[in-house]
């Protein structure tokens, strides 16, 4: 390493000596800090604006899937919408129903009920679920989320 002539001639500084804060350096720091704070104050509302707004109104605790008549018989299924998301309701017995989220946990495709094989199929990547929503084959990493179903006064209600 070469030492410049001018540097060599400089008086040695005591490293323990506190560095001097001049008015200029202080104002410089305040200005820079101010710019950072200002930028933050500008970016924060813009980011909050971009973050999806929550839909107003209270959430429902149950939704109706209709009556037994709407299913047309044991072994049939029906799709019900809940806040833009599909729920699949399967009539498994005369008074028995099962409800699952119809969104495949693999890559978000909508599953279909196959009455012939009594299984739930994903059309995207050949995922197969049993009537209990459990993965039988294919790439889905977990079972379909299940909802409780109650029949009240002939109406099939899905508990959310």
């Amino acid at each position, binding site marked *: 390493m070469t030492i410049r002539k001018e540097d060599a001639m400089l008086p040695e500084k005591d490293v323990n000596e506190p560095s001097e804060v001049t008015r200029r350096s202080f104002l410089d720091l305040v200005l820079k800090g101010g710019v950072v704070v200002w930028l933050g104050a500008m970016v924060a509302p813009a980011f909050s604006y*971009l*973050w*999806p707004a929550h839909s107003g109104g209270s959430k429902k605790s149950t939704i109706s899937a209709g009556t037994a008549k709407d299913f047309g018989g044991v072994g049939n299924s029906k*799709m019900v*919408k809940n*806040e*833009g*998301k*599909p729920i699949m309701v399967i009539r498994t017995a005369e008074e028995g129903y099962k409800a699952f989220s*119809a969104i495949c946990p*693999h*890559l*978000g*495709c*909508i599953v279909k009920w196959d009455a012939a094989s009594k299984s739930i199929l*994903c*059309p*995207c*990547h*050949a995922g197969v679920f049993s009537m209990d929503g459990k993965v039988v084959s*294919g*790439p889905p*990493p977990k079972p379909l989320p299940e909802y409780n179903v109650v029949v009240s006064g002939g109406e099939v209600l899905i508990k959310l």
Partner: protein
Amino acid sequence: MRKLIQVVDNWLGERLPMTSIKEFLHKQSSKPLPPHTSWFHTFGSLSLFLIANQIITGILLMIYYRPTVDNAFESINFITTKATFGWLIRGLHAWGATLMIIMVLLHMVRTFFMGAFKKPREMTWVIGVFLFGITLTFGFTGYLLPWNQLSYWATTVGTEITGSIPVMGEFVKRLLLGGDVIGGETLARFYVMHVIVLPWVLVFLVTIHIVLMRAQGLATLDRVGEEIKPDGKNGLPFFPHHVLKELVLFCIFFAFMLTLIVLWSVELGEKADPFTTPAGIKPEWYFLSTYQLLKYFPKLIGLFISTIPPLLLLLWPFLDRTSERRFSKRPFSVTLGIAAIVLAVVMGVLGYFSEREITFFGKKYHIDHYGIPRDIETTVEGKDKK
């Protein structure tokens, strides 16, 4: 006419340093290019032509397009079937997008194999990789806009993959979608990204890319640090030699685009239905290799593996620090480059044929999720025997 030009020239001359501007333009147009400059060096200009095509046709499409769930599909249908030459404008935009990705890829392949990314052009390469990423993002955001079944579900699959990124995934997905599921908010967000944000970023980066390229000149095939600057004797004049070459290719390329539009018109298909997924949904061809690769690994490992190629691309000028540019003298990088291309093509082909039935030499096969062909007849016979 000459008089008018003279008047305009004088008027400008009284207000601007016209002599310096003219000198600068003359210097740029007469700048000699390295003697090995060939047809392969036109991929960059063709990418630029395609960017111009996308901007012009994009502006024209915006006149009739309506970015809402109720109107998006109908407005594209109107453009294709009712608006005068709408089919042509949409065709130029849709085919232009595909060809732009091919052209940017070819431009990168040429730069890689000719070692043009090496010192002092590392920054030009890095900006180029970002430009490639932006081109893909253009494709991804634009694909949803027609709001048809294919675009809706391909975007669902794409955003679900984003959602599985550890820690940040769900956050980024929600920010992208503007909610929990793809809807009107998603369409608006993708539209703004596609027509405002991305074009400005693209124009900004392309400008820096071109300024760097002009300032540093095209790379020769000499070793790093031993480049012989092309001069009037051994160089090839940019104008008219190279410009003419580009113009010839531009005419052929434009004719090729028109042929594609006439022979393979861009189908609109059915309107998006968020409650019915059509069978065998797949992303656009340029995401097929990543999509197929993700199938062979658990989600997290797959995502980790799929981030390696773009990272390697970005950092390659800083990893490959040898002085040689000629590909015959860079066996390791060339082999790696060829292997990457072969892997991408194989994965893409497997992704394309997976979950389909094909007939090969009179036999029917079902290509499964992983791209392995299963003989349908044998399977059926086997089942019958049982």
